[in-house]
């Protein structure tokens, strides 16, 4: 077990260009499941690879378990990593794949079998040990990669989008398994993903990144309910938070809080009028599209998300009474995008 910390970590790939990672300082907690979330190109994978020792930081420090590891090679950092493609060694059987880190780290031979069996048992892949990676399904490969990561009991797990190669159905169950697995072994885990559902579902805390910078660190509820800036507000949530601006202030409210007036508790709400344009029926819910009809934000495009059990019928180009509870309005500075309140 160990804590991972970065101090002012920066990576510039090409001199003069903007850094892929800029001045990132963060620390995990003991045994925490920390998720790096961001769009592609946000620097999350580069940050992870620097922690692994696969990229050299341009400046800044990396500490694992309180020890400065900048000068250590990957193999000396007591980390294990699961790659997006799983990077299973194609010429080795599952057994030898799992035993490989033990061999490479010169763990005494007589311990290999016990450890491999233990890791394979933990992931339920005991019957696959004699197979070659190409004979495995996507889900099985992922388990082998995890077994290979766990086998030498690393201080830290690093996972780089390990679910992105699975099909949608498998992904949901694999996500849950992975979460349970981490909770059971209790190893500090850093998980990189661009999928907000994964991040929200699995992370103890989420690090939202954009353009090489950390935008916000917090629990899933914090980053969703109290976004630190407009990027976080729009990156999380689907459809994203409505943002309407007037007089130097951006007002944000989530589609699920922007509801037909009758559905909102009257005393503390802000009324708005929606000029309805069209609707998407998604089974469990309905997405209503339109624009605000009057007030300082008239004309701004907004989205409402209501349960499909809602009986309301909306007609194109008609105007309807909507409202948002006051406590759900988030205010941002228009110039910087930073949250005011």
């Amino acid at each position, binding site marked *: 077990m160990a804590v991972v910390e970065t101090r002012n970590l920066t990576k510039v790939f090409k001199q003069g260009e903007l850094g892929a990672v800029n001045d990132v300082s963060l620390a995990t907690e003991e045994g925490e499941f920390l998720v790096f979330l961001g769009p592609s190109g946000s620097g999350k994978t580069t940050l992870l690879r620097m922690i692994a*020792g*696969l*990229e*050299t930081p341009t400046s800044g420090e990396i500490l694992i378990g309180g020890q400065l*590891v*900048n*000068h*250590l*090679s*990957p193999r000396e950092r007591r980390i294990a990593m699961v790659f997006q493609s799983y990077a299973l060694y194609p010429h080795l059987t599952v057994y030898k794949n799992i035993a490989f880190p033990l061999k490479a780290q010169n763990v005494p031979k007589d311990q290999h079998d016990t450890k491999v069996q233990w890791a394979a048992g933990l992931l339920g892949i005991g019957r696959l040990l004699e197979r070659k990676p190409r004979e495995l399904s996507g889900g099985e490969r992922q388990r082998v990669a995890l077994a290979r990561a766990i086998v030498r009991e690393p201080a830290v797990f690093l996972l780089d989008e390990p679910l992105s190669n699975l099909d949608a159905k498998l992904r949901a169950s694999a996500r849950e398994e992975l979460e349970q697995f981490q909770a059971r072994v209790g190893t500090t885990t850093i998980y990189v993903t661009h999928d907000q559902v994964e991040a929200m579902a699995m992370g103890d805390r989420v690090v939202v990144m954009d353009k090489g910078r950390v935008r916000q660190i917090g629990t899933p509820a914090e980053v969703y309910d109290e976004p630190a800036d407009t990027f976080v507000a729009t990156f999380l949530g689907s459809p994203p938070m409505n943002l309407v601006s007037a007089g130097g202030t951006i007002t944000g409210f989530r589609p699920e809080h922007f509801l037909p007036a009758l559905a909102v508790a009257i005393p503390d709400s802000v009324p708005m009028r929606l000029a309805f344009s069209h609707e998407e029926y998604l089974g469990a819910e309905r997405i209503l599209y339109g624009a605000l009809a009057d007030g300082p934000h008239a004309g701004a495009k907004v989205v409402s998300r209501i349960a499909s059990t809602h009986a309301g019928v909306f007609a194109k180009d008609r105007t309807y009474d909507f409202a948002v509870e006051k406590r759900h309005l988030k205010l941002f500075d228009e110039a910087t995008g930073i949250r005011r309140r």
Partner: protein
Amino acid sequence: MSAGAKREERWLAPAMFLPAVLYILALVGIPLVLAVLYAFSDARIGSAGLHFVGLENFRSILQSPGFHKAIRNSIVFTLSAQVIVIVCSNILATALEEPFRGRGLVRFLILLPWVAPVSLGTIGWKWILDSIYSVITWVLVALHVYKPYSTPMWLGEPHLAMASVVLVHCWRLIPFSTVIMLAGRSAIPKEIPEAAAIDGAGFWRTLFQIKIPMMTPILSVAVLFGIIFTFTDMTVVYILTAGGPFDSTQTLPSLAFATGIAGSDLAAGAAISLFLVPVLVAVAYLMLRVAHRSEVA
């Protein structure tokens, strides 16, 4: 890489590729320089000394009729062989493109001339083109094209000998060119000819307006290698005719061998072989352009 690992890599990369680079430099780079030095000297087999004689070698070479003949022959052989090879290998590649039963065996038989050692294949041709026992002659006599005992000497008459050399070069290069063409065709996504067919293009239109233009890079690779293999080759000529009759099939490389090694005049031989360089440079330049274009694409 962490800083430590990075330091490892800084010396690791050169340590891994320098031995090979030095080996090549020693056995290609140095001889190349020596070839130029010799061309301006009076180096001979058996004499250790070396004096510079300026352009003397080049002057005497350029004045010798044998050299002019050799240059002309080299160019004629290379160009005529290339034209025949490209046409034939395109036809053959078209015929081999679709899978059919026995394709593997047919491919092997067709490839034999390329995959077997050149010198051995050529000696086979020498027997086929023998002055007395040639099977070709026998067939032509049997068909009453020639009367017995007044038959052509395939390797003994200047024009027939030249045609024979071209024939053997073509025989050897058609398989190579064909497999390159096949590789080029298989790289065209199947959807493109299919789209062309749906758009109403027939066999010939698809061939000339879709397939061949898309294959230009690979076609140029085949031609460039073909030029090198023919222009710089001396095996075929050396075994088939040894340059004869009366130097009528002498090429630059075989003349360089005859002068430099057989005739012991290293300097003149080196000077002759230097005339290969312009062609090599041109080919290398074009090859780089092909490589660069495919890199950009």
